[in-house]
């Protein structure tokens, strides 16, 4: 089996796992189970990134999403009492026929569109500045770093103000009022 065949097998397995665990994530009743399925989806997303030669993003995905963010989500789930979720269930109404038909219609339209897009897909974009070989010779992380602190310095800097706004918002909204 050549390298291409191996890559395809790995991609196929991880794609299936990502889809299955994403579906399980949104259908589980227990939030902890959902969170665990989400971790699995994140991990196999990282594998797909690796296949695309994006090692840096793969590592960041595992460390930031599967690591740090999931920890926070689990903390929140454990601190907020879980019983509330079960009470909500009973009040849930069965969707009406009209809603079901509308939902099915949207899904069918989207599926057909996806099908058309994948059949008719043509690579129209012009070749990028950083093809795989160039990135390979320098190193993935180094390329990302030099772009971030070089060409894209300005968005990088204003993103820090964006984060400041987020922090201020989190503090001011969660602060206890007199």
């Amino acid at each position: 089996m050549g390298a291409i065949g191996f890559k395809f097998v790995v991609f196929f397995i991880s794609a299936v796992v990502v889809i299955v665990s994403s579906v399980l994530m949104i259908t589980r009743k227990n939030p902890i189970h959902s969170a665990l399925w989400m971790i699995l989806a994140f991990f196999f997303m990282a594998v797909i990134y690796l296949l695309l030669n994006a090692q840096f993003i793969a590592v960041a995905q595992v460390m930031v999403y599967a690591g740090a963010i999931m920890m926070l989500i689990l903390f929140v789930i454990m601190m907020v009492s879980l019983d509330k979720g079960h009470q909500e269930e009973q009040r849930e109404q069965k969707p009406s026929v009209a809603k079901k038909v509308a939902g099915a219609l949207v899904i069918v339209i989207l599926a057909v569109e996806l099908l058309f897009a994948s059949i008719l897909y043509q690579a129209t974009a012009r070749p990028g500045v950083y093809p795989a070989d160039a990135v390979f010779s320098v190193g993935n992380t180094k390329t990302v770093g030099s772009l971030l602190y070089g060409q894209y310095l300005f968005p990088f800097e204003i993103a820090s103000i964006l984060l400041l706004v987020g922090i201020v918002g989190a503090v001011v909204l969660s602060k206890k009022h007199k």
Partner: protein
Amino acid sequence: MVVMIPEMNFGWLIPEITIAVFAVITLLLSLLWKKGGLKPFLGVLPLIGAVVALYYTFHLWNGNLDLFNRLYTIDNFGTFFKAVSLIILILVILLSFRYVDREDIVVGEYYALLLFGTLGMMILVSSNNFITMFIGLEMMSISIYILCGLLAGNLKSVEASLKYFLLGAFATAFLLYGIALIYATTGTIDIREVATYVKGGGFLVTPTFMAGLALLIVGFGFKTASVPFHMWTPDVYEGAPTSITAYMATGVKAAAFGAFLRVLFTAFHPFFSGWTIMLWILAVATMTLGNITALKQDDVKRMLAYSSIAHAGYILIALAVGDRTLSSTVLYYLLVYSFMTIGAFAVVIIIGRKDSPNTGIESYAGLAGRHPVVAAVMAVFLFSLAGVPPLAGFMGKFYILTDAIRAGYYWLAIIGVLNSVVAAYYYLRVVMYMYFKEAQTDIGLPDFSVGSAVAIAISVWAVFHLGIFPRTFLMIAYKSSQIFM
């Protein structure tokens, strides 16, 4: 591997830097001044910052250059919108002095987030690059999400904040997905390069590209509150603090339309035939639904929310017509619309009280007898919103509909005219209550303050001046839209 450190041209960024610095200073001083008697001065600080930034923004006029490896652009179009958002900021700060005190809002964070939101708008409108544009848009949106929820202990305010945040995050995903598809099919995120690449031949219009364009329109449609992406608007506008509602209805809308216009008229103008139909439908739906739903509102704040949806529809007419030489009418209309809407919301603020916002239409009954001046200015703003000459609202609508007729969009113009007839009913209904109805309950005199008086005076002056002498401002708007030539 060469690291391309951009040239540091900070001189062109003085307005943005001023706003950012004043926001941080306000945030820090609010901690120090919390106890002392200096608290009222916290509002003065951002006001100074906004005025200084506006002064330096005027100096950017006729400067045309790219900064930071083409990731930020100074041009007249951006400068115009920067000036508009700073003027809106100044008016909103003036309105907030008394209001923030009355409603017990955390002062420091309130003003700091207002400044950060304006900074986001300034970045949003002066970038030709999707990355910078997106960060600006997010900075603006996140500040507004938080500002909506600042009414302490008010459930409606919390609901507004959460609703806006959830739907806004969803719309952001649409926008980002659109940008990703555009990038996938063109290989660039600079909107001018998208245009040159697309026009250069060898480019095939694929479904992927059109899907990207459609998703971009959905994202911007949400931010500009166009039907059918308007569902959040009435609840959020009603629940948010009134000063923030005024800010959302004018500032956010102006900045989002600015970026929308730039993206459509620069990158996607070669596909004009593809999106003009989409925008035609959006414009008609937005005008009609906004106006017809506004007819049934008994709450003035909610009525103004629907009216702002309807006005987005009028602006979309000009976008659907898509004539780049005539895009200056959009700029003029946005300027006019900002003044009259802020003025109307200012009156809503001063009619209100702590714990009883008095936004119901019956609160306006007999206002002319109790306070003729307030009733008169409210009537001016409402007449202007309805489009009665010689007020500015009439000129704005007149130019937009003229454009539509000149470009051969007769049906669009006819629907626009019919809609403004419908709109006249609900605006004049408030005027009727103010002048010809007896007050049922005594709600006391308006809660006047120096700040709101100045803001209202500026708005009244602008509504008259822009309506009677529109020429200067049309020329400025025309020069701003020269970048599309």
